[in-house]
């Protein structure tokens, strides 16, 4: 699978937009070979839908346990009469912001990891220490996404 042509920026926007819309994303590794395990893990979190990369379209079952939709580039699509919730910095750090998984390399089965607001805030504060620009007058450049070849 070769991902080309700026699609990784669109992926990034999709990832940010799920949280911005007020939903809790549960991220699945691209290394998971087919959707059966995806739907099993999603059910453990009472997940209500699955958004997938277009390249996985042929792998999606014709009838899934939850609604599914491909994540495509909708930058030129007109969207009207939709309101978003306010951007908040909540006081309850125990609420879940996002969901990740372990690799499953030890037990053979990925485990669900609930990322709380307080944990993410701590990660942001720590990472800020690592990305202070070398010079205050210019931005440093880092590689944020990478192209995956197989």
């Amino acid at each position, binding site marked *: 699978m070769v991902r080309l042509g700026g699609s990784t*920026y669109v992926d990034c926007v999709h990832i*940010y937009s799920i949280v*911005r819309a007020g939903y*809790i994303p549960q991220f699945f590794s691209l290394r998971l070979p087919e959707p059966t395990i995806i739907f099993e*893990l999603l059910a453990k979190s009472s997940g209500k839908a699955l958004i997938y990369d277009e390249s996985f379209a042929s792998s999606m079952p014709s009838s899934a346990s939850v609604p599914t939709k491909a994540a495509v580039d909708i930058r030129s699509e007109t969207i009207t009469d939709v309101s978003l919730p306010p951007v908040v910095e909540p006081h309850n750090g125990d609420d879940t912001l996002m969901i990740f998984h372990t690799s499953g390399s030890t037990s053979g089965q990925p485990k669900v990891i609930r990322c709380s607001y307080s944990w993410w805030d701590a990660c942001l504060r720590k990472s800020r220490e690592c990305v202070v620009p070398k010079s205050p007058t210019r931005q440093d450049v880092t590689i944020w996404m990478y192209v995956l070849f197989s």
Partner: protein
Amino acid sequence: MLSSYRTHISILEQIAESHPNANAFQVPQHDPHTSEILRWHPVTYSRFFADVEHFAKYWTQWFSSQGIPRRSVVGVW
């Protein structure tokens, strides 16, 4: 005073307001035949945040059409 917890969204909103024209990304444009990078396209913080809001409205519209309320878990693969 109660603590408040920042997120990558709240930080992005603040940066988009304080440094709207600073570049958040340089996105490569590839030659479709050779994969060679032809040029780089800058994306400012204000553009990035605007795209995030636009995509968020798209997903809000689709989730609502499926009867999926806010704070629901949705898989991303």
